[in-house]
């Protein structure tokens, strides 16, 4: 059951081959049996899930079911869910229950999806290995001694391990694509503004975007169809018509112009990963695409720019966690300052504190121009690079991450080494472009991701290119040992 596509599951549910309650029980049983070794879920909501499944079964019987009726999914624990804890991977929100649903949660519920639980993540989405979570690291289903990537590591591992049909994620600098690559699943980060950020706990507001992790481009299209669209509650959401992603999956690939930025294949990239990516682009050439080299000259500046902009925004976004109204509060504060200091010192982990401090520093009087303002200027240059490239090509491709999954603990003492994991994904967020990662030939039994970057609101094109590739290859079908 767990290896079927979402379209197949939906068809089975409509034919009553099995009920959503049965499907949901099946996934809950897999989670209970397999997740203790992975730690991909922070909360499992068995009872609400079964109630939603029953509701979906009735809706299917009544012919009133939405497109995702009865399909069990999981939400990254960054999306607020009314009545179900939303921790954001932090001690700060260990007991926080939002009184509202995120728009993404609301829309998927309206489409009939069943929520199995909330997935583990790096604390406040700050990390590339899922090791900064207050709830402990997630293990990679392909090798439990290795990281799943982050910050949507729980969602990626859960999808790879077939613990849910698909999962939501968020991507601020690569947090959907990099774990998708490291766990061998398909992940899409849409254009900034494509999905509403309402109810999605902010890390860096100008970069954060919700997306999907799934086992295929077709599955991702099914879910994204229901998530995307304008939301008046988010002033940065785009009032741009959303095409039907499932309908456009079969677009022809012949004549597609693919650009490989030379900056994405330089030092730091594992040669075997490069070979795997090149092999995939050759496959696309065989399918009729025209592959050429391009340049994104400012892309090497992405990481430093990102580590000014994202911490700056996070230092302000996380100021609301002050121990006053909700969230962690220290015991017996002596005075207001003590309340602030200890509540935040106890509630936030080391990486979050580091980024708050960096962000506070770069926004300080006397440093603002040198750091924040300059970073914003370079951000424009990076976006301009992409626009020049898109005059010549339709899709840009390259590796999603420089290496395959690394061992747990390997980079925890070296933040810069950790940050470099996102070297190929960050520029996309800085420019606000849609990006995707799909599995290609593995290296030493570990998954490798091919990154696809499109122009604004070209999610349909990315999904169709990925779908065409997946119809011609089998990498996305591989399941890790013990989770088939």
């Amino acid at each position: 059951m767990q290896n079927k596509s979402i379209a197949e599951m939906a068809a089975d549910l409509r034919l009553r081959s099995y009920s959503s309650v049965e499907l949901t029980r099946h996934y809950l049983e897999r989670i209970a049996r397999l997740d203790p070794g992975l730690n991909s879920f922070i909360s499992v909501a068995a009872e609400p899930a079964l109630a939603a499944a029953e509701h979906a079964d009735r809706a299917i019987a009544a012919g009133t079911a939405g497109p995702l009726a009865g399909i069990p999914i999981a939400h990254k624990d960054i999306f607020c869910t009314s009545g179900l804890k939303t921790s954001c991977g932090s001690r700060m929100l260990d007991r926080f229950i939002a009184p509202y649903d995120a728009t993404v949660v609301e829309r998927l519920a309206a489409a009939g999806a069943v929520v199995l639980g909330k997935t583990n993540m790096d604390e406040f989405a700050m990390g590339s290995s899922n090791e900064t979570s207050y709830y402990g690291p997630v293990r990679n289903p392909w090798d439990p001694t290795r990281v799943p990537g982050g910050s949507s590591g729980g969602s990626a591992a859960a999808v790879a391990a077939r613990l849910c049909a698909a999962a939501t994620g968020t991507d601020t600098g690569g947090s959907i694509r990099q774990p998708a690559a490291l766990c061998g699943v398909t992940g899409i980060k849409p254009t900034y503004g494509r999905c509403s950020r309402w109810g999605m706990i902010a890390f860096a507001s100008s970069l954060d975007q919700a997306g999907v992790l799934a086992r295929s481009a077709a599955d991702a299209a099914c879910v994204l169809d229901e998530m995307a669209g304008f939301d008046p509650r988010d002033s940065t959401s785009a009032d741009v018509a959303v095409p039907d992603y499932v309908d456009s999956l079969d677009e022809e690939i012949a004549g597609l112009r693919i650009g490989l930025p030379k900056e994405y294949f330089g030092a730091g990239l594992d040669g075997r990963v490069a070979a795997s990516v090149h092999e995939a682009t050759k496959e696309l050439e065989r399918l009729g695409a025209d592959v050429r080299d391009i340049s994104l000259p400012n892309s090497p500046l992405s990481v430093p720019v990102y580590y000014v902009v994202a911490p700056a925004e996070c230092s302000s976004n996380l100021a609301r966690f002050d121990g006053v109204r909700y969230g962690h509060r220290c015991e017996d504060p002596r005075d207001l300052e003590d309340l602030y200091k200890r509540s935040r010192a106890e509630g936030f982990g080391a990486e979050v504190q580091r980024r708050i401090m960096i962000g506070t520093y770069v926004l300080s009087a006397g440093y603002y121009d040198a750091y924040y303002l300059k970073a914003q200027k370079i951000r424009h240059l990076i976006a301009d690079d992409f626009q020049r490239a898109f005059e010549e090509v339709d899709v840009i491709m390259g590796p999603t991450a420089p290496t395959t999954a690394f061992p747990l603990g390997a980079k925890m003492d070296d933040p810069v080494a950790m940050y470099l994991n996102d070297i190929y994904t960050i520029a996309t967020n800085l420019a606000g472009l849609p990006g995707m990662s799909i599995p290609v030939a593995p290296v030493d039994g570990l998954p490798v991701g091919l990154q696809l970057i499109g122009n604004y609101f070209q999610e349909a094109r990315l999904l169709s290119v990925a779908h065409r590739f997946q119809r011609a290859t089998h990498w996305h079908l591989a399941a890790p040992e013990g989770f088939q």
Partner: protein
Amino acid sequence: MMQWETVIGLEIHTQLATRSKIFSGAPTAFGAEPNTQACAIDLGLPGVLPVLNAEAVRLAVRFGKAIGAEIARRSIFARKNYFYPDLPKGYQISQYELPIVGEGRVEIVLDDATVKSVGVTRAHLEEDAGKSLHDDKLGGGGYSGIDLNRAGTPLLEIVSEPDMRSPKEAVAYARKIHQLVRWIGISDGNMQEGSFRVDANVSVRPRGQTLFGTRTEIKNLNSFRFIERAIQFEVERQIDVIEGGGTVVQETRLYDPERDETRSMRSKEEANDYRYFPDPDLLPLELDVAFIVDAVADLPELPDARRERFHIQHGLGEYDASLLTGSRDLADYFEAVVAATGEPKLAANWVNGELAAALNRADVEIAQSPVSAAMLAGLIRRILDQTISGKLAKQVFEAMWAGAGDADQVIRAQGLRQITDSGQLEPMIEAIIAANPDQVSQYRAGKEKVFGFFVGQVMKESKGKANPRQVNEILKRKLAGDP
């Protein structure tokens, strides 16, 4: 002895009269139970986002137009970051580098009736914070309470140039802005409820010096009297400091009305670094021409223009014209009286005199006056047609104020009609002359002051209803011995 010059600039926070908050749909009404008018957005819960209230923008645009300022076609919301328990997000959404309203000017009328132009540097939109309630108001126990009803209330912060040179000028400017925001309907200006709060930047310098002295900022002045008192105290304090050989420290001070003094709140070193940056949750505010045109389409004739018109059209002096344009309601009232009587001078005297005094005593606004413009006009008509004397008119006015009906009703009910019938007056006067032979002799001996005595007697006898002009005429004649 050194001559000192005072330099004052004001920052005025005026609450915009919107029904809902600037970034959420929660209501803005004053006086509700604590924390009943704050939604998830106002509480700063995780994942919530602000959406700008278009009405607040419209009101800001009206203000900009009213002071002749440039309306920014593109303005930016920025975050002002600091920690305080009544600031739910840990930042206030405000405008910093690109405010919605640019430079403008207003005119103030000084005591000597000269007109002075004061520059407005800018005006920007921002959200208010909540309110902290401390121990004493919560019945003890060492607790502080937070009421977030106010959080997210739309404010327009109006920043002046340092153009004022005395506490009186500062008050005149504050009154002017207060008049204007109410006049154009963007704020109720209620100072008790905190809808109009003033911060004063004050410095002194030796007269003739062009460089500004070090300034202090006095926060949260919520009455015109406090503005004047606080600045006056602060000016004297600064001069004392300098003349005593010290230097003024740049700091924020609070005015204590009970002790009539300002006290240091925090120094420059303790000041927050607000780390302003553009709010990534809100796109730049882009206004199209149609929005601006629509926002200002129904702007009323502005107070300065109306004051000037009162001066020219109704022949009023600068002082009367300025008083009568203190609020739109007052100006409308005045013009209604003029329209009904054709007597601007008399109307101005009554509105600025008896009516103003009565309103003041009762502490009510012109809109709540029990004597309507039509009623006052009716009274003035009875003065003009000599039905009653000016003195009796005051009595009629008081009765109208007390709810005894319109002028004619009062005159009839109290029998106040003037006695103009000489057949009635002459015998009365003759009797009085006959009863006071001593005074008659004195008058006839040239002691003309005694004339007043006779007038008083006649008025007393007629219960004030005798027509004074007629009394004079008959008395003179009879005392002279003419029949």
